[in-house]
């Protein structure tokens, strides 16, 4: 059972993810952010439930829809926000934006714009732990759509074969861009694919952060103990479009509304209240604290200069 302190920490994490992305939607709509962004609102229980099992030394890999994982892993919001704004003080110097946020400090080895590309790379940080004999764990987040890339197959096979300390977290929101899961795979439960590799596969309700945390904890401990990888599928809901601004015309009437009824944050609030592990005052204070953090991060990003054009060739090579 997760302790009160841990659950409060998780609540903070989930709400932070939510508020960060709400704010991103706002500033994006105002035109403050170049390019495009993909938000994970509705999916916070996955990011926060999993990352609560990790230490700063552990590494995560994420995707185009990576803000949540990155924030939950503990990135400093200021360079995070500045990166998305494309400013010099961004965690990647503004080089790469929302789709490529990374933080060495926080153990975020990168969001990735190529679907399925993070999985092979995650094998390597896990292998480095095995090689060195440390007990760090790698977590690789990806979507349901990504599980049809060849890299999924190659990576899970190799991870199982070598018993690598990596946890594959499939965030199944039922959609790949504008296309529903049934359009791109015949099977329903993605965790069933783990059997192809001799790896445990588990499916949880990804809107129930307690369930996510429980299974993630087991998988992370397993990896940390040298017992090998796990495929953890978290079923969840994408409230917004594929990218910010996507009107989701391709979704059936009422579907989005129904998805939004399942609010992982509200679920956790109900649980905390029922168990008397937190009260409304805690929720409000947490929200206030988060809003202040975000305000500061936005101010930081807005105040940060554009990267210097004369640095355009910096960091191509050592």
């Amino acid at each position, binding site marked *: 059972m997760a302790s009160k302190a841990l659950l409060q920490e998780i609540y903070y994490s989930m709400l932070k993810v939510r508020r960060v992305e709400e704010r991103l939607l706002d500033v994006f709509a105002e035109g403050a952010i170049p390019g495009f962004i993909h938000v994970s609102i509705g999916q916070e229980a996955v990011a926060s439930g999993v990352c609560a099992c990790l230490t700063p030394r552990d590494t995560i890999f994420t995707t185009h829809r990576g803000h949540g994982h990155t924030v939950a892993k503990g990135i400093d919001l200021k360079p995070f926000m500045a990166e998305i704004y494309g400013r010099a003080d961004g965690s990647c110097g503004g080089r790469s934006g929302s789709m490529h946020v990374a933080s060495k400090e926080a153990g975020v080895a990168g969001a990735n714009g190529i679907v399925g590309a993070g999985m092979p790379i995650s094998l390597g940080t896990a292998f480095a732990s095995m090689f060195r004999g440390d007990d760090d764990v790698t977590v690789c987040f990806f979507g349901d759509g990504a599980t049809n890339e060849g890299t999924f197959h190659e990576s899970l096979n190799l991870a199982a074969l070598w018993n690598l300390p990596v946890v594959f977290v499939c965030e199944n929101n039922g959609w790949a*861009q504008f296309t529903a899961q049934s359009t791109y795979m015949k099977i329903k439960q993605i965790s069933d694919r783990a059997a192809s590799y001799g790896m445990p596969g588990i499916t949880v309700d990804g809107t129930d952060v307690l369930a996510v945390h429980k299974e993630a904890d087991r998988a992370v401990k397993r990896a940390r103990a040298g017992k090998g990888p796990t495929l953890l599928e978290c079923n969840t809901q994408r409230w917004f479009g594929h990218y910010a601004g996507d009107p989701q015309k391709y979704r059936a009437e009422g579907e989005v509304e129904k998805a939004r009824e399942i609010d992982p944050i509200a679920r956790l609030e109900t649980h905390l209240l029922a168990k008397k592990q937190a009260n409304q005052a805690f929720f409000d204070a947490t929200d206030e604290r988060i809003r202040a953090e975000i305000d500061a991060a936005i101010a930081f990003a807005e105040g940060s200069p554009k990267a210097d054009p004369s640095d355009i060739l910096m960091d191509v090579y050592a």
Partner: protein
Amino acid sequence: MTESRYIKAIAQALDEEMARDETVYIIGEDVGASGGAFGGTRGLLDKYGPLRVRDTPISEAAIMGLALGSAVKGLRPVVEIMFADFLPMCMDQIVNQIAKTRYMFGGQFHAPMVIRSPGGGGLNAGPQHSQSLEAWFAHVPGLKVVVPSTPYDAKGLLKSAIRDDDPVLFLENKALYAMKGDVPDGDYVLPIGKADIKRPGNDVTIVSLSRMVHQALAAAKILAERGIEAEVIDLRTVSPLDKETIFASVEKTSRLVVAHEAVKTAGIGAEISALVSEEMIDCLDGPVVRVGAPFAPVPFSLESDYLPGPADVVAAVEKVLAY
């Protein structure tokens, strides 16, 4: 003649070719109900049904191989790969399978198929969604590589590509999708392998392609104000290259600038420069100057500093003329 956006001209070409030839079909991620990430296949699912407009899983290698196998059996697939940056995900199928099919099997099989994919920057899409990779594919025998710069060209060239009996990589440009231009309503085709003189001139030749053609034209305007008449050649096809048109122009102007958005080093500009050096160095009245992106990935925030523009083309022309 209707004014139409580049992306609409593409959708129109697809529509007309599907109507004309029932072996033509569309395959790719999100090409169906949603009409493609950029709208290139909008309306086609409703019109031609799900057998001919195929939404796929995110499985680029399987998509590409499937298209090849069906082409070998006489269908004419038009594959959409959402960003040209994803072509590396199915590089083996393109280079080792599709491009080599006719040759490797001694002409028994061939692969009449089109791969549509947008390259280029200008949308702040970052290092993995902004690349211009035409030079790679120009190095691959068996492929044709087409790079349209206007709605008119896009429609006419895509129709030719679909009718071509060889595999054609049709590299569109995201930043041009919204561009408007006159497009004939009915059928017309433009020849693959023929460049187009987008602006005649006698003083210097500027060879360019895709979005960079417009930067070259803007440069030509600036130069004209200074009394320099640049001839702007739009390659339209980078493989095979239209040496004749380039050489004829250089014969006239004696001066050559090649401008593309791709990284300059080992880009297609190098090939054009080398061809001219090799076969008509006599005619040159100065160095062949190339304009291209710096040797770095496409940066998110510094994209506008990174991408070559009219000023770079003007500077290149000045360098040639200063000689």
